């Protein structure tokens, strides 16, 4: 059943430029050859981390980028944040092309888009009190008087669910639980009052019992109008908390659509397989997982045709051949096509 969100009605009204628009983004990394490789003049190789990715994130919307490690979801996020430079494609923020902005020009923008890291045990300085950690971004950006800064720190902490803030201001990270640390990390992002949050696996290092509270916090921030790009490998989390899901495979989005539509009615064979292997919470829902053989291929040597065809159950089972499509699967790279309202998949058979 589709979830009803209070933000739904609101979103239709917004006609301002979208918060984030990413178009045909391509990011590649050189693969080190090593000295022997260089002397032997082995060809320079590149890892095709992101190969033509397009998506948008609106204000008050959460998009989940889902995929296995190595699919390019983190590189996508890093490119959007301009931490890594793309080879081609554009990133627009509030309608402004930021793809080629120089470092100095990027600074005011960085305040408006903030990153939340995976591990709150790593991302907080153990020698900094909560107050200092949360204040740091304001100092970096030369914002506010000392009094204003302290007010903003309090406000950010309380917005991140650490209320009353006085209770936490003078603590060190080791005096906080995992969930509280992640809230401090979120407060540190919120203190600059950003419009977009990029959360890279925000709960994967946390205990089960506190994951929900962090996800609920992100959900309430989304409701308050923030755009959130969440990177996750956990489809269950994405299904429950995101408005839309984009499934990535080997540098491409292979399926994208409203979260419930993607989970209930997956159109790409990769998404279908992923859904069958997600362990269901209910023991009565034991389904036979459709386990793909092997692992995702190396992004240095992307298969020709459909990048998924060597592992595709439709090709392996002969169903693609029965439909006379096998040649196309092997030879032609499928593009995303809209199959239902706002629901796209890149598969010749869909």
């Amino acid at each position, binding site marked *: *059943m589709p*979830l009803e969100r209070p933000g739904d009605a609101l979103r239709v009204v917004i006609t301002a430029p979208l918060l984030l628009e990413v178009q045909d983004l391509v990011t590649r990394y050189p693969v080190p050859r090593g000295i022997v490789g260089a002397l032997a003049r082995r060809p320079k190789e590149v890892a095709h981390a992101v190969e033509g990715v397009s998506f948008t994130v609106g204000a008050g919307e959460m998009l989940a980028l889902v995929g*296995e*490690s190595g699919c390019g979801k983190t590189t996508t996020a890093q490119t959007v944040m301009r931490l890594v430079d793309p080879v081609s494609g554009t990133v627009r923020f509030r309608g402004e092309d930021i793809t080629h902005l120089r470092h100095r020009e990027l600074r005011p923008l960085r305040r408006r888009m903030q990153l939340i890291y995976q591990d709150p045990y790593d991302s907080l300085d153990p020698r900094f009190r909560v107050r200092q950690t949360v204040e740091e971004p304001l100092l970096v950006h030369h914002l506010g008087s000392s009094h204003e800064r302290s007010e903003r720190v309090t406000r950010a902490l309380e917005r991140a669910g650490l209320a009353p803030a006085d209770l936490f201001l003078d603590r060190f990270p080791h005096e906080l*639980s995992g*969930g509280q640390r992640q809230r401090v990390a979120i407060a540190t992002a919120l203190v600059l009052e950003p419009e977009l949050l990029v959360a890279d696996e925000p709960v994967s290092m946390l*205990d*089960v*019992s*506190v*994951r*929900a*509270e*962090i*996800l*609920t916090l992100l959900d309430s921030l989304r409701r308050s109008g923030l755009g959130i790009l969440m990177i996750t*490998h*956990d*489809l*269950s*989390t994405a*299904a*429950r*908390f995101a408005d839309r899901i984009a499934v990535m495979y080997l540098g491409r989005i292979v399926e994208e659509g409203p979260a*419930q539509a993607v*989970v*209930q009615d997956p159109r790409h064979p990769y998404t279908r*397989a*992923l*859904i069958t*292997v*997600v*362990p*269901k*919470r*209910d*023991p*009565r*829902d*034991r389904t036979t*997982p459709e*386990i*793909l053989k092997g*692992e995702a291929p190396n992004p240095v040597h992307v298969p020709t045709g459909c990048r998924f065809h060597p592992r595709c159950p439709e090709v392996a089972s002969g169903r693609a051949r029965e439909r006379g499509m096998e040649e196309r699967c092997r030879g032609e790279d499928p593009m995303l096509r809209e199959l239902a309202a706002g629901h796209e998949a890149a598969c010749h058979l869909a």
Partner: protein
Amino acid sequence: MNGSGPLLEVQGLHVWFDLAGGRELHAVQGIDFDLGPGERMGLVGESGCGKTTAILAIMGLLPPSASAAGHVLLNGMDMYEAGEDSVRPHRWRDIAMVFQGAMNAFNPVRRIVDQIVEPMELHEIAEGRAARVRAGDLLELVGISARQASRYPHEFSGGMRQRAAIAMALACGPKVLLADEPTTALDVMIQAQVLELLTGLTRELGLSLILVTHDLPIVAQTCDRAAVMYAGKIVESGPTEDLFHTPRHPYTRLLFSATPDLYGRGEVISIPGTPPRLDREVLGCAFAPRCDMAFEPCPSVVPRTLPVAPGHGARCHLNDPAMRSAS
């Protein structure tokens, strides 16, 4: 099970860690369970609940700063009757373990095959050529081509290393396999491959499995029975379906509702508060401060495990009519 009694019995297992200043941390506070042949049991709990410590104790692999008490019976024989001397012949031979984080289970500078052969030679299961052939067979069993046996650990991906770690645990033909978070660092697809492998081994080799995890859905999908640990104690155990559908301990119920489900049914709610420190004595029920149903006796009286259905027990005053009527 099949009338022959349990394969592994754990009775009153306690583990203490020595802390600085003469203090002690009571990590495992008297746990009991049985495991039948071919049975798959999930041991579930949050980090710090003592689940890993408990299985390390069963393996006799606790660090020197720890001391243990209780009984671990294998086919009715106490493995710890004479301490380390009586457990050594059983370790790896009868009971083996797959460690958390397959990355660290191997010596990086030795070939995979040599590392699988080592326990066989140590326990005189096989030697030389025969041992290498057996190592190859074991790798094939876990889905790795025997031709890759002489590779080094870094040449394997995370999923393959975890499979190789399982092959190594199987080297001496154990009857019980203890797997500590065997899929935590792996992607969902690889996780599914490893879980399918473990389930297949219990079916084909009649191996018994204890799967230690913090992930309820993994237990829901792979185990016959589950035991939920909290603050060093098993607070509820029973057949997976009963436990997940009619939990009789509030912690089990809350843990369940804190876990998002793919099909998004029901609200996802986290459990407020944190587990108690185990370096001081916990009065009453350890979960009482976080419990949404705590009543009069909970903060002061330690609950006992009471049977609530066939094979299903819970350590909660709510199941005790005497407690309920008294308050």
